[in-house]
């Protein structure tokens, strides 16, 4: 168990460092950080990329977008 918790800490630390690099160098992540920090998370490019993904899950105080979007193509059936 000690080993498990050590692995978890290592993963966490490495991920934070790697994540900082990605946020620092990738414009979309950088803009996402700035949007959230600026209090406008809805302007984040990441949030916008997920516009059609579970549209019922919206940002606090923002209306759900389910009705606004036209449905995509139907699924393949078995």
């Amino acid at each position, binding site marked *: 168990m*000690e080993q498990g918790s050590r692995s978890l800490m290592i993963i966490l630390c490495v991920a934070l460092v790697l994540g900082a690099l990605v946020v620092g160098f990738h414009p979309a992540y950088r803009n996402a950080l700035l949007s959230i920090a600026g209090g406008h998370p809805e302007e984040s490019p990441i949030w916008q990329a997920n516009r*059609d993904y579970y549209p019922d899950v919206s*940002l606090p105080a923002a209306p759900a977008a389910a009705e606004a979007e036209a449905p995509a193509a139907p699924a*393949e*059936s078995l």
Partner: protein
Amino acid sequence: MTQNKLIAFCYLFIIGIAVAMAFPLAASALAPLWLLTVLLGAASLAALALLRKWRPPVESESVYDAPFRFDGLQTGVWALVLVTGFVFGYTRYLAMIQSPDRLIAHVTVEDGRAMMEEPRDLGETGFLAIRLASRAESEIRLRLVGETDALLPVPDAAGKPTLDADGRWAFTQTTLPQPGNEIVIPEGARPGTVVVVEQPYTRLKGIEVVSAPARARFDIVKPVNTVSLFARHGRNVVPVRVLGRITADPWVYSFKTVLSITPAFIQYQPDGPYLPIDRQTIRVTVEPDLPGYSEIARSAAYGYDVAFGGQLISPSGAATAGSFDQAKYLRNYNIGGQVTLKATQNAFDVIVPRGATAPREGNGLVEFSLYLRDEIVRVIKQTMPQPNSAFLGALTLGLRYGMQNTRSIASGDYDDATVAPILDFGSDSDELIADEFKASGINHVLAVSGLHVTIITIMFMGIFTLLKISKKVYVPFVVFALVVFAIITGARPSTLRAVIMNSLFLLTWGYMGQGVRSSALLGVPVAAFIILIQNPAMAVDPSFTLSFGAILSLALLTQPFFDLFKKAQGNDFIALCILVAVLTWVFAAHWLLATTVRFWILFAVLAAVLFGLSKALTKHGFTPIGNYGFADIPVGISGFIAAQFGMQIGMMIPLSAYYFYRWPVAGAYANLLAIPLVGVVLQLSMLAGLIGLIPGIGIYIALFLNAANWIFSTGFLLIGRYFSSWFVYPFVTKPTLAWLFAYYACCALFVWWRPLWYRHARPVWRRASASARVFSVAALLAVVLLAACGLRAQKTAMLDEGRLDVAVLSVGYGSGIYVGTPDGKSILIDTAFVQTDRGRRNDAERTIMPFLCSRQIKRLDALILTSGAPEHTAGLPTLLEYLDIDELLYPASAASALDRPEIASILTERTAFRHHLSDTEIPRRVLAAGERLFETEYDGKPFAIEVLGPAAGDASAPLTLRLVYGDASLLLCGELTFAQQQALLDRVPADALASDVVIAPAHGTAGLDEVTVGMPNDYDTRLATVTGELLKRSGADTVIYEFGNPRPVVQDKYKIAVRLHGAAKRAAEEALPDADILATDIAGSITLLTDGTAWTVSTRFLTEAGDTDAPTSLEVGW
């Protein structure tokens, strides 16, 4: 020993369920079986208590080489426990499938008068049924007279049904007389025949006999009000009104939402009373244009009370042997009917209880879990771009529905995305990520299972350990977290299994000091028992079987394979690596070679040569890697490889072939990368999701964590992308149950050969005389030989030698016909259509290949294309990729279709040298009138496929074929236009067209190409004079139309195509008034069998299957 008995009890419980599935008794056996179960259970507990007192456990019992000693008491208790488990399993399944119909009265009819015992109370309002106790010597006509307590909802101001403050539906009750409609029981009906009286009764008063034989006996029973009692097929469907409650998390797709609604009341007849419902749920598909859609397309809708109207459809079974059986799938999940709600046809209301301001909520724990899930989805949406977010949602939260239309990371969809992929992976793929995962064998990560639960368990344990909290304190919290996780992810069998097992482990580890290994073998059967006692039908559900197969493979096969592989050292290890490399090349580059016997013989020779060479070189001291071997690889890696190998042998190969007719060969390799990577992705995702919930700083940490995870999850998506393109996803023949039994018997021998040999066989062997030893070996060989012969005979029986077997497959608006000749040849005529727009549907893949696999056919003697039209040829690339085809035959008019790039490239590839090796080249030949194919004679009856058209030199007409076997014949008209039908009539003598069965021309839509607007005025005349004449000349007893939804093929002309088809069927009825007119859209696949004298025609469906919303593969879980 008690633990072993508990394990055996659980397995016998499962075997009892399996036997009940195969040989169910009648409902009347239920009561005695329950009594027997209780008595056996009590006896078992008493016997176990006595045994514990008289025979304390001894150490030597687990030692392999301890000789076996017979102990009467132990054996008796074992037998009692096993019988109890078996009877309990049998009874539990029977109780699920047999609705305990309530006997209301025995009735005897004598001289036109019915004598009924004092009828018992019906209990609740519902239908009645008459169950014959004696044969109906003549037609019986009677009426059941009674009363109905009619319930009608109390409407609100808007006319909607209302709920009282306690959440009960408000009704007004009126007692009405129920005079009963006339019930007709046909003459000759046998005892046991049941006739359902579809009228509601609350009390039965009497019986009026209209006409009856001199004496008749029957029972009146009250069926349980299940949903399926009110669901209907095809044209028999009637609209119903339902008052119920959403009792599961809504499945929200991007284009629909699927609700599981438990009905409280159903109104079966318009303006009729509402009837209470006791069992089953309704699968309701809601289309996004329904008003108020957004209110129910979300997790919060769980628990809502709803009222709606719609057609309650009984789900259909498989339209073709081997295809997906929707009815069975839904039955396993206790779903009795399906409803699809559309804006133009249906109303759907969420009902708020009187005095409340919001709809009712569901179970508090579930509500909390779903709330938590939505919060984590919100974090994912803020911190991870598409398509990775869809993958993460599916992986972490079981939200597979969100991945339904998510395209590959190498698709052009992301060229203009707001967050571009890390690197440019190209835009050439049109695949869905879900399909890539399936083809690369890593789809199992989306089925939330032991991998996820174990990672989460370890993660939580790690967090608590870091915080220095005692395990006795934190174990309950981790168990609670696992329960919440199971609810969040949909509580599917694989998740429940893992949660139960991990919880058992945590509890025994935390409070009883036991280790992981001892809990694994106990945890598997106990978890299975807990799941199956709640729903025994799950025993054959793929998600259950695959999950338990996987964990048992890991637990039982990993160590034996590790022990086997570690013997490979030095030169032997090099030989083993070379063999693995050869196998990998064949799997990746030339799958068809791997399906030939010659390859495996060559492979065995190569193995013998390599290991022989290894021995010789070692003997001469040439050992370039010394004694390095499998055992020297770091144990984490070597153990993982052995576990993966065990998983393939124990679960993937046999069960994937059995359920899906496919084996993701890439999985054996892709999982070596995917499983370690998914551990990282899942942990980071869970941490990000949970930390992101912390107000303030949480979302920033989550952003950093998921920024890193963006790279790791992209790596995972690339594994799916590349392994699915490097390896084929081949079809394999479906093993029979006997094959599976033999296969697992071999696996069991491999796992337990030591205790079997050392403890049981060797002591006997040592004492035996020489003659007894010879006899034993001979007997063993005889058993093996008999088993092999039995399995072989089973396969031979499938070929049905001496019969001509024709199956007209249900492939929508297209053609796919299987012909099994009397001398055992397999021929396929046409390859069906492939729909690429508006959702994908490849009937070659979903219908034809499963059908062939279910018949254990992996090689075709010929593939015949009758036309170049896409509904005949679009599936050709699929079939060429997966099947060994001896010959490709087609008319001159179809030659251009073979030049299409996707077909031409495969045909060219089939000329490569490696196809010489495997003998899988495909010779092609153009057919013309006058040829006779596959001529043979069986039992004095000649068989041939006659080519009637096109005439030599005609490069536009399709093939017209006639199958003749003895006195039986079948005419296959193909895609003939009116002009071509007329030319055939002019050219071919009448006796050459004479056939018992005709497969009608052009799906019954001949002339569609010429139609511009509306039905041509002279269409009926042309049908009568041309097609009608063709049918008359054939003199057929049966006319078959290959038909289905024409929209994907003919696009905007689909409405007129349906009208033309209707007209064609009417013309056929006029031309051949005595013939059976069948169509594959109504009857499903049609099978025709003849021994050369007459045809036997059978259809998959007796009535038209309803147009229901089929579960997606992501919903089913594969």
